[in-house]
């Protein structure tokens, strides 16, 4: 194998692209109205007008416009996704619910990370807890019954929530244990994905974490006869506790 410097390969590919792009392409979505035959000049080049996405959001499934609508939509999406969504009155009430789930599922080991919301919750749970901050042994995380994390935002439009590798306990905490519990405040719930990506940019734009994941429901697969099964490789259960 001839070793070539990466710069050469990059320049070579970019040069091919620039050469290819010398001939303009017709306007997108102009089916069958372009040039017929290779010698016929293509249709006039479409002048690309800024960013269409800000407009595009109005064509997407709606996320609601008031906090109450956001809540209703998030609850409806969660029900369809089989996310266990519980909106409660206070943090204390959330801890009560958390203890109930822990008792009914018999959690022996809990995994979490340090943050005001999770610290209060793990203290209230009072069970052996693995904190992933600063590194951990994967085998020890694998045997935990639950991963409890915070999130950046929640999205009413899709029933999703966003975790990241810096402030939600790393990459594996939210996917390796069989149950993922998310603790969130009501003001973290936004309308649609456009809002969510803007908030993520505000939160992390100057210093990006290495991973940001939009989580929509528990892990799922339909690979066998298109029949839905939860818990393919990630968590079988997803619980969102919000107050």
């Amino acid at each position: 194998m001839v070793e070539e410097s990466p710069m050469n390969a990059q320049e070579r590919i970019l040069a091919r692209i620039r050469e290819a792009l010398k001939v303009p392409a017709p306007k997108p979505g102009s089916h069958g109205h372009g040039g017929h035959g290779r010698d016929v000049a293509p249709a006039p080049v479409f002048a690309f007008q800024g960013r269409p996405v800000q407009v595009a959001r109005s064509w997407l499934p709606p996320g609601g416009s008031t906090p109450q609508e956001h809540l209703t939509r998030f609850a409806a999406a969660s029900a369809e996704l089989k996310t266990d969504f519980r909106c409660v009155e206070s943090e204390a009430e959330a801890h009560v619910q958390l203890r109930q789930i822990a008792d009914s599922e018999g959690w022996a080991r809990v995994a979490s990370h340090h943050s005001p919301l999770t610290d209060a919750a793990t203290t209230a749970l009072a069970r052996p807890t693995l904190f992933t901050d600063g590194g951990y042994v994967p085998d020890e995380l694998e045997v935990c019954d639950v991963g409890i994390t915070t999130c950046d935002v929640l999205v009413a439009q899709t029933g999703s929530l966003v975790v990241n590798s810096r402030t939600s306990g790393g990459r594996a905490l939210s996917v390796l244990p069989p149950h993922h519990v998310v603790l969130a405040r009501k003001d973290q719930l936004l309308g649609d994905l456009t809002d969510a990506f803007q908030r993520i940019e505000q939160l992390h734009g100057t210093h990006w974490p290495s991973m940001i994941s939009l989580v929509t429901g528990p892990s799922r697969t339909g690979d066998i006869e298109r029949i839905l099964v939860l818990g393919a490789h990630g968590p079988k259960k997803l619980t969102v506790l919000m107050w």
Partner: protein
Amino acid sequence: MSNAAQQFLEAAGTITRNLRHRGLIQTALRKYEVARDRKKSAFNDWSAARQSAAETKWDAINHLDTYLTEFASKIEARGTKVHWCTTGPEARDTIRGIIKDAKAKCVVKSKAMTAEEIHLNEALEKDGFEVVESDLGEFIVQLRKEPPYHIVFPAMHLTRDEISDLFERELGSAPTREPEELTMIARRALRRKYIQADVGITGANFAIAETGMVSITENEGNARLTSALPRVMVTLLGIEKILPKLEDLALFLPLLATAGAGQTVTGYNTLYGGPRQPGESDGPIEWHVVLLDNRRTELLADPEQRDALHCIRCGACLNVCPIFRNVGGHTYGTTYSGPVGSVITPHLRGMQEWKHLSNASSLCGACTEACPVKIDLHHHLLQNRRNAVGDSPSWIERLAWRAHAFAVNTPALYQFGQEVARIVEPLRLRLQGTPLDPVKSWTRTRDLPPVAPESFKEWWRNRR
């Protein structure tokens, strides 16, 4: 006829007679259609959303050099190593080198059609590495030692019983008819692999130029685990995956999920911007992003079909294609099957060898209608037919058309032909269906209309 064309015809002849296969595909795709239509109707305006996506991809592809440079420099700034590869073998050697340098034994992989395209697994296994596919469908077809049947649903051609038999044989599990139990068998088999593996390989759905990130879409969480636990991560993607801005995902994620599987958005849509960053608790120490050309720039050089590079690999055109629904995914003999595969394969692997795929179409246009980024698929199939003939004209065809043109332009000769046809007709009818039939290649699958008892000219003369 090319080898590939011969194989296509043989495979199609067999599978179209297989009623069990047909039943399975029809059931699976009916379920898909119901889900997709329900999710499409949740859009305020599906067709406007498609047009917007087509315009965004048009911008990305027609400024590919700028966006790729931006993507690479942003992602490198966070410590990622970017490799640019012109050909499949180059990309394979690059990844083999990374795995050797990592002194890896076990490699875990999440779904990547680009890896199928360059036959990565075969190359790595030849080197003695164990490569484990972690997506459930891919895991199943890997155990069967066959390529994925469909770019989104790799094992849709198998029943639960076949999968149960396969797991019993290969993994020693107890037989079961429950999809849930079968899924758990795979889950248990793969859990250890994520933790043991030294290298994780993933594909990618989008590359965001603005922020220098790769976006990976999946339902199972296997790509999340593949990119969380191994100490080295490799991501292989085609250069056409570019999107200009992060917020473009607000449009593309719902579009991909709705068109691809009838979901609002897919279970996990994950952005990766670098290897483990200072202060983070896990993630790979090294991350290699391998950008693959593999003749995509040749498709780019054809302005007429450049929009085929807008493809987001949702599989919607496969699902609605009457040809795909009858011949299935394996008949194509290509990495990318269905309408989009028929359009791009001749560009990626040679026009003359693969031109027959342009004829594996009824030109009904269902693919074009289904495409969420409005690729003009069925016209591209027509253009490929034209280009294939233009590049390599057949002298027999040309001669035949010349003769035909001469005959129809010479009234006396044309009339003589009619007379002969009328005399020969009864004899030909008696030969029809026998090996002596002179036009048997036509009459084998089609009707030949009978020669009219009198021509229009004669009819007109008699009526006056």
